[in-house]
């Protein structure tokens, strides 16, 4: 017996929209079975996981805060992935962005350099530095690919570890808080070097707006601009693109710079937003989770917004489930895995017909 995948002749809009919803429902059913096997009520878990976080103002804010770095990074990655370039190193670009921007935060600590003109320039400069840090770091695998033909998958991934170790060394060395008893962390930035919160005493910071703007601009670029078309053409038909006179080397560099800049911006938004200092670890793996988000959102900026919020919901719901139902934290990760599996299967099912051929050789 053999299983064949035959491409469907045409994809319908109904299938495209329906498939992720079916996948979500299937994931909830599978998750429910696991929860039931753990001896907890699946309906209660569903309520705690998916409904309650959507009913309260503070958890809605937390959703946006958690989704913010994922959206920024995933939108950047969608440029690369549409062009069939595989930037796996967003985590490293996130870190170098946070590092370069955070460096200014450390320099200006305790009102240093703020004497004559005040500190208004610090935060915008930090954001710019963050984007530059990420962009320059992303340029390394792009240049290696253009010049030497090195696989960007490998080089960008390996550079993640370089960035992690670099950050680790800096916060234990030159960036260490001199009054911090040798603990590996920098000083806490001045308030003026922190992203402002959108309301007093709340957690929603201005980075969320940046993420929204980035997604909107990207949506516009993909839908309306020649550049967006170029990216897609080079991804889908590189030969045709060359005949049309597009320069794929230049494009490689451009999409990596965009992707890196957005990841770096996400990094400095985390550092200047909710962390407020440099520590040995500034990302719980956002750069990698964003790859999942980019694909869940089918590389479309609006899809990415939705996907990031769904993933953020699994984190926050998962914590609520720990608090209220004493479900283990592993359940959150298991559920994320189930969800991804269901979406991928649904994706295959919308693109291909599955045929079983009895009697055929495997």
């Amino acid at each position: 017996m053999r299983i064949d995948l035959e491409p469907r002749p045409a994809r319908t809009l109904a299938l495209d929209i329906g498939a992720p919803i079916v996948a979500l429902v299937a994931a909830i059913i599978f998750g429910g079975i696991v929860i039931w096997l753990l001896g907890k009520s699946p309906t209660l878990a569903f309520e705690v996981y998916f409904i309650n976080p959507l009913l309260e103002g503070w958890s809605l804010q937390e959703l946006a805060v958690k989704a913010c770095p994922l959206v920024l990074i995933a939108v950047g990655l969608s440029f690369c992935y549409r062009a069939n370039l595989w930037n796996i190193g967003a985590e490293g670009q996130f870190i170098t962005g946070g590092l370069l921007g955070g460096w200014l935060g450390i320099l200006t600590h305790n009102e240093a350099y703020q004497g004559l003109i005040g500190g208004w320039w610090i935060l915008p400069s930090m954001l710019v530095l963050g984007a530059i840090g990420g962009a320059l770091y992303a340029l390394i695998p792009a240049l290696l690919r253009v010049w030497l033909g090195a696989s960007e998958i490998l080089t960008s991934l390996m550079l993640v570890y370089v960035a992690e170790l670099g950050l680790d060394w800096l916060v234990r060395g030159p960036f260490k808080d001199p009054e911090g008893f040798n603990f590996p962390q920098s000083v806490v930035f001045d308030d003026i070097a922190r992203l402002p919160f959108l309301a007093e005493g709340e957690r929603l910071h201005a980075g969320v707006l940046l993420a929204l703007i980035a997604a909107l601009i990207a949506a516009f670029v993909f839908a309306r601009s020649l550049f967006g078309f170029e990216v897609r053409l080079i991804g889908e038909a590189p030969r045709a693109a060359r005949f049309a006179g597009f320069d794929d080397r230049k494009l490689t560099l451009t999409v990596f710079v965009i992707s890196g800049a957005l990841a770096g911006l996400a990094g400095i938004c985390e550092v200047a937003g909710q962390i407020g200092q440099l520590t040995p670890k500034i990302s719980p793996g956002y750069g990698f989770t964003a790859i999942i988000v980019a694909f869940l959102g089918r590389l479309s900026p609006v899809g990415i917004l939705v996907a990031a919020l769904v993933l953020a919901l699994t984190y926050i719901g998962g914590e609520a489930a720990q608090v209220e139902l004493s479900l283990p934290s592993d359940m959150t990760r298991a559920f994320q895995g189930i969800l991804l599996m269901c979406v991928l299967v649904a994706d295959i099912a919308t693109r291909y017909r599955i045929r079983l051929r009895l009697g055929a050789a495997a």
Partner: protein
Amino acid sequence: MKKTAFKLVLLSAVAIAAASASFAAEKLKVGFVYVGPVGDFGYSYQHDQGRIAMQKALGDKVETTFLENVPETDSERSIEQLARSGHKLIFTTSFGFMEPTLRVAKKFPGVKFEHATGYKRAGNVSTYTAKFHEGRYVIGQIAGKMTKTNTLGYVASFPIPEVVAGINAFILGAQSVNPDVKVKIVWANTWFDPGKEADAAKALLAQGADIITQHTDSAAPLQEAEKAGKFGFGQASDQARFAPKAQLTAIVDNWSTYYIERTKAVLDGTWKSTDTFGGMDADMVHLAPFANMPDDVKKMAEETAAAIKAKKLNPFKCPILDQDGKAVECKDGKALSDAQITSMNWYVKGVDDKLPK
């Protein structure tokens, strides 16, 4: 008359219902935030044992909740979630939770916070840690006696004061019984990563170490010692079940007493922001049963432990020489002060390593 009686009955029924409702509502909700999984059988596990013991001791007066595997940089939301869901006392048990704890505490002045191993406090934030170095002095003596190669291996996590103080106490203990002993240190740069920890232990064994000590949380280094037919010490928790032939003893973090005491203080309304640095005398640190060693070593270890417990022996008693052989100023008269220990960033004489700066 009848009506009044009826009203009275009704009223008292309401009163009783209200009283019992408020009694039920008075159940104190206590939250715990762990950096690792409760199944690490080391640091986070031991905090969770403290939680369970506290729950048992205070019974239906308290209700406890924990969040495990909380990443330090993303912990503010998790801590806030506990504060929002009605927890009135929250223990955050890793150093990296310090700034997030302080920020949430500012937002929830009515909630009490307890942060382990940090140094920043506030009106509603206490800090607590234990004098683990007291235990390390005892195991240093055991190691100094047990070694045949005069080379001890030390798997260290991060060069923060707690770990540096541990190394120093261990060496001082070893030197007190064996002046020729040397200690080799490998920085694993992790608290919990069994693979890396095992590699560090293997490297030390290959360099001739025959006793493995660790300041990382998994049982992996101890298991490597067992495989090699050498000896080691359990970390944070009694890990004898992972290495029955290799574990000489273990430094056990015992948070139960502290958690019971602090929760009681909140129940009684006597809770105040404090800084606790308890040792073997307060039973915050104790040693697992001595095993796999000759009787004379066991006797020596028991005596040393008893002396520390009775405060007759201070591992950091003066004179203490630093790596260059210079005497260190003793701010507590006869010994180093607590402040000197909790900010330690220098090695004592005889450490064959450079402190990562």
